[in-house]
């Protein structure tokens, strides 16, 4: 299916009030005549920003999986839990539906986000015309599921807040949790910076 893009016609839509207004190619900063929001045909420096955040996320992903997300100290000694060992523990303790949920939120979702953003950015940088509709859907998926990988961060926060019974057990968050939080934040920024309209630019 073909059609004219807003950019080729010199039209731009305001993402605050939905007003379509004219915009010549040379102007850098244009304000919406209706609500004075910033207008731009494409998100500025979309690929560079998105790629930088993606690389930062990929680097943080390694310590996030190596270092413990929390340490449980009991009278019998202390025990470190990484993200993967936490999932295995849940599955072995019999609550496999919960294990599957945590597996999905803390292992599948981050990997899917890193993979999907790599595909999206690589295809845009190669000026690919392959499956634009599916790639746009992939972008929407990344935007939608991205937040769910915060699950493990909240579990650690609550456990560390609740399990502080000196004589019995205490839970302390670990460096892995900080790195994992960074992965979630960086992939979310990467997705926010990415402009899906770039996918369609090379088709015209």
């Amino acid at each position: 299916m073909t059609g004219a893009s807003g950019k080729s016609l010199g039209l731009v839509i305001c993402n605050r009030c939905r007003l379509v207004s004219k915009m010549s190619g040379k102007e850098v900063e244009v304000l919406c005549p209706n609500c004075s929001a910033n207008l731009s045909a494409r998100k500025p420096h979309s690929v560079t920003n998105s790629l930088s955040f993606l690389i930062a996320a990929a680097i943080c992903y390694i310590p996030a999986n190596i270092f413990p997300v929390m340490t449980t100290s009991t009278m019998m000694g202390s025990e470190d839990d990484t993200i993967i060992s936490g999932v295995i523990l849940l599955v072995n303790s019999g609550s496999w539906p919960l294990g599957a949920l945590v597996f999905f939120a803390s292992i599948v979702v981050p990997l899917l986000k890193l993979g999907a953003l790599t595909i999206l950015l690589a295809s845009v940088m190669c000026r690919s015309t392959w499956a634009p509709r599916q790639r746009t859907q992939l972008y929407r998926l990344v935007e939608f599921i991205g937040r769910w990988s915060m699950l493990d961060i909240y579990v650690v926060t609550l456990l560390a807040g609740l399990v502080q019974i000196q004589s019995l057990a205490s839970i302390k968050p670990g460096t892995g949790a900080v790195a994992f939080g960074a992965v979630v934040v960086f992939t979310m920024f990467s997705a926010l910076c990415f402009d899906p309209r770039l996918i369609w630019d090379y088709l015209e």
Partner: protein
Amino acid sequence: MMEHASTLTICSQCDLVQAIQSNNAVDVAHCSRCGCHLAHRVDDKFEFALSLLIASAILLVTMNVFPLVEMRVNGNTRATTLIGAVQSLYSQGMVSLAILVLITTILSPAIEIGCLLMIVLSPKLQKLAPSIHHAVELIQKFHPWSMVEVFMLGVLVTLVKLAAFSDIILGPALWACAGIILTLATLKATIPMHQLWNWSVRGIK
């Protein structure tokens, strides 16, 4: 058959210029090229939005003031509030995590609900009108970072983990949390961003 006027719009995800029927002729319009949601029927549900927002504000206060869960092990009792959990992260040296949890579970929902209330109340309180576009901007900035629903799931996972070796009592904040998810989701589904803007403009006039 009645003819419906159509307006020009541009898809925010693939930049295709296309015509959609205006005046709420259809329930929902999708982009003909990439399938992205373009617009949906908006009835002027001003009172509905206001009541949902007041409910959200009450729930927000409840969620932050009362304990989330209480745990009982061998005669020891320990309860935590949302801010208490953030504080304990902070005191354990996890400053960055504490900030992340603070922004996503306390600040973002509060900013979202506060700004929405400002916009909805602006026709009644003229004093608020000049700062309305800052409110709309803040909502757009903070919306992706408001993660109450993920937090709720996190609470449930924690409860299952703790239930193995302690008695758990659910606190009022947990129910408030569930309520906020419902009210905010309903608001988001019934009132799109540009409708907020229309209301805020009406407030200025």
